[in-house]
Structures are given as C-alpha cells and as structure tokens.
C-alpha cells in the first residue's frame, strides 16, 4: 500500500489555518457554557497565571535593568538621560512587555496546557469523557483557553511594573538619573493610547498563544512522541505568530 501523497507547504498551511479556525469556532461556542462554571476557569487562571508569576517577574526585572543601562548609555550621548523614564516606559508598555510576556507564556503555560491535554488524550481521558457524554471542548479545552486569555494581559501588566522598577533601580539608583525627572517625564509623556496599544497587544497574544496551546494538545497524536511534537509546535508557532502579530498591530497603531 502506497503512502498518501503529501500536501505542498502552501496547501498544508491553508489546511492547518482552516482547521484552527474551525476549532476556534467550536471553542467559542463552548466558552459560553464554560463561563457557567467559574471555578474551573479560576483554577486555570491560577495554573496559567499565578504559576508563571515568578518567571515573568524575574524576566521583567532583568529586562528593565538592561533597559536602564542601555537607555542611559544611549541618551547620555545626546545629553538627555533625564528622558530615561519615558524611553523605558514606552519600550516596556508598547513592545517589550506584551511580546516578552507572550514568549514566556508560550514557554511556561502554553507547553503545560499542550502536554496536559495531549496526555489526557493519550491516556484515553478525553475519549472517556466523550463516552460519558461530556464534551471535552466544554470541560477541558474552553476553561484552559479562557484561563490563558485572562492570565496573559495580567502577566504583561506585572511584567511592565517590575520592568519599570528594574529600570528605576539601575537608572536612578545606580547611574544617578534624577528621580523626579524619571517619574514626571514618564507621567507627562505616556498617554492612554500607548497603554491601550500594550493592552490590545497582550490580549491578542493571549488569545493566539492559548489557542495554539489547546489546539496542539487536543490534536496531538496519542503517543509520547506525539505529545512531545505538539509541545514543540506550541512554542515554535506561538513565538512566530506573536512576532508576526506584533508587527501587524504596531503598524495598525501608528
């Protein structure tokens, strides 16, 4: 028996996009029913959000500290090191906060979601639910998706706050930038539109990364290798899609 012919890359990409779109439609239908069980969603917000806090805060701190150093070095050349607060705030709120949080989210919470759902399929738990007339899309997938969608903007917010503290620590405490200038220039220059850009980005990334994670897990081959491949696919697809969406959203907001 000959193996079925493989689709070319564009055909395969279109097919996968269509599958994910159909999956999203099914998921959105079930999200309404899943909202009726807030306990399951809160549990998933805890799993995806609270358990990612340490890594997000640590990363935010270091990114903010690097911003403080690099920003100070760059601005000093133009004699405008007092603008460090604005530079750090805009970089973090509009770009680094949502993007790096999404990449961290894909690596920590996304892989966890994929492997958990994939293992549930490999050990027949998903099939058992279907036989018990319980829709796994409603009971398993939708709460995890919603949990990720809610957790991602909250994590980005925490990342931004800790990042600003990191930039302040290095710029003000270490390099001697004036504390008043740091905060007042930031307050005067960061407008609501900047904050909205960051919020929209983190929400969009949250939907994209959570969707990829639950879809990869739900469609994983029910073997150890299949779950491993699905987990890798989650990280790769989420990272690439995050950067692509970031460019599109940045272009849209300018």
């Amino acid at each position, binding site marked *: 028996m000959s193996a079925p012919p493989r689709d070319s890359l564009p055909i395969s990409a279109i097919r996968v996009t269509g599958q994910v779109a159909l999956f999203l439609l099914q998921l959105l239908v079930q999200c309404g029913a899943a909202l009726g069980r807030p306990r399951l969603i809160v549990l998933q917000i805890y799993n995806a959000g609270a358990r990612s806090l340490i890594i997000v805060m640590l990363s935010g701190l270091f990114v903010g500290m690097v911003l403080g150093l690099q920003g100070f070095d760059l601005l000093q050349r133009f004699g405008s090191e007092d603008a460090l607060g604005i530079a750090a705030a805009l970089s973090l709120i509009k770009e680094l906060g949502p993007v790096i949080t999404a990449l961290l989210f894909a690596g920590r919470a996304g892989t966890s979601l994929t492997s958990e759902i994939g293992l549930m399929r490999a*050990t*027949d*738990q998903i*099939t058992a639910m*279907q*036989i018990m*007339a*319980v*829709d796994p899309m409603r009971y398993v997938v939708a709460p995890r998706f919603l949990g990720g969608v809610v957790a991602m903007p909250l994590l980005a917010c925490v990342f931004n706050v800790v990042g600003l503290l990191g930039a302040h620590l290095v710029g003000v405490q270490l390099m001697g930038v004036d504390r008043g200038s740091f905060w007042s220039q930031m307050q005067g220059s960061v407008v609501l539109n900047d904050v909205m850009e960051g919020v929209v980005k983190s929400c969009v990334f949250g939907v994209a990364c959570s969707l990829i994670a639950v879809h990869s897990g739900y469609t994983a081959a029910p073997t150890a290798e299949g779950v491993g491949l699905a987990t890798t696919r989650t990280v790769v697809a989420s990272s690439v899609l995050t950067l692509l969406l970031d460019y599109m959203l940045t272009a849209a907001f300018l």
Partner: protein
Amino acid sequence: MTNDSPHGSSEAPSTADVVVDVRGVEYQIASRVILSGFDLAVRRGRVTGIMGPSGTGKTTLLKLITAEAAPTRGRIIVCGQDLATLDRAQVFALRKRMGMLFQNGALLTDMDVFENVAFPLREHTDLTEPLVRALVIAKLNAVGLRGAAELMPAELSGGMARRVALARAIVMDPEILIYDEPFVGLDPISRGVILRLVREMNEGLGITSIVVSHDVHDLAEIADDSYLLSGGRVIAHGTPEELLASDSPDVRQFMRGDADGPVPFHYPAPDLREQLRSVDER
C-alpha cells in the same frame, strides 16, 4: 455454531431482544479496510464476548458502537436507534445509557477516586450532595473500594484503577456496559475480581455486557455468546463451548493458541534461501 450472519441463525433473537444490532458494516481508513461485511447482534441482559487476535478490528467495533466513528457502509442500531440518523445531542443522550470500561481505566488524573466516580453524576444530574455521596459510596462498595475513596488515581494499582473505572461506568445505571480488554496486564487475583464483577454487574443489575478480549479462557467463564473476529470479519459465533469444540482451522488456531496455522507464524517475506543467497552475492 455458524459462520453466517447472526441474524440468520436458527436461534435468531427477536428485534426487541437485540440491544446492539450491527448489520453489514464496513469500515475503512483511507484505502485500508478494517471491518467488512460485519454482522453482530448483542442480546439484552447477556454477556457477549468479542474475541480475536490483535489488530482484527475489535476496538474499532467498539468505536462504531459508541458512535465515536461512523461506518463506511452498513447500519448500527443501538437501543433501537440507528446511529446514522442521530445528531450530536442525540448521540450524547444515547451515550448516557452506556458505560465503558477502558483498558487502562482512563480515570481523570486530577481528581481523587470519589470525584472520578461522582463525575458523571455531577455532569448530568442535579442530585443533592448527600445523594451523590450515597450513590458513589454504594458503587465503590460494589467494587470493593469504598475505603479507597480519597486516593488519587496515581496511587492505585492497575486492578484497582479498573475497578474504580467500573464503579464510574455503572454510576449512571447504564443499560449497556462495554469492557475493552478488561483482563490485560492484571495479576490472577485482580483478574478474578474483575471476572466476578462482570458477572455480578450482569446478573445483579441486569446490564447487557459487551466484553472485548483476546483471553479465550477468561471470556469462556463469563460470556453467554461469543463472536470470533479475524481479518475484520466474524468468522464464528456461538457459546464459548461451541467455539472451543469447533473443527474450523481458523477457530481452532485461535482457541488453542497455536503459533502457526491459517494465521501464519511468519510475516509475509521473500523465500529464505533466495534472501540468504542475495546476501552472499553482495
């Protein structure tokens, strides 16, 4: 015993007596035929055994009966309902009348034993908590694991996990109970416990049971009817005693466990001498 359609046998059951009726079913994936010309009738209140070597379509048959997959051709009627005519909601309603015991138990790993058994009740009923507790304790008691209610699935042995899964499968009082390879990988004591429970569920609760297994002797102890599958077809059916007494070479090879016969020991390969000669020539 007959190799023909079960519907054409001299002891053909009445339509009302048949809970699962599989007629002329064919199932294929891509160009690979898994089941072909498949007929099977499961009678109410009996234990029906489905035997056959690995890879003959036993698990596929269960997927078709539970409407997880749809046949390429033919009809499957469960509890008087033609599966092909049911929409998703009707399929889910029908599944509430079935219970299934998976080979590995398939317990939900993030819940303890009690919550696993209570899961279908919480999902499908509005029973009060005291009533849920009473029902779950009764079902766990029936499988001898009332004392294990607070254990997590990872803390259970293979036999215990299957007994918990059995308690979960019967908690909604199903009409049909399906067992997928319930004896695989169990020690003799656990196997004996499962054998006893299958029989008790059938006699005590009046449940119609379908047991898929390749263990001839275990099935012979509990099955009222048996079907023997090979190559995606039913090659024999009757009581276990009839199958054991069969003089058909296919049936005899399986029932006796002969290494060679109609199902050859060797996977199809070129002639050994030719192959060795070609190795020498290289």
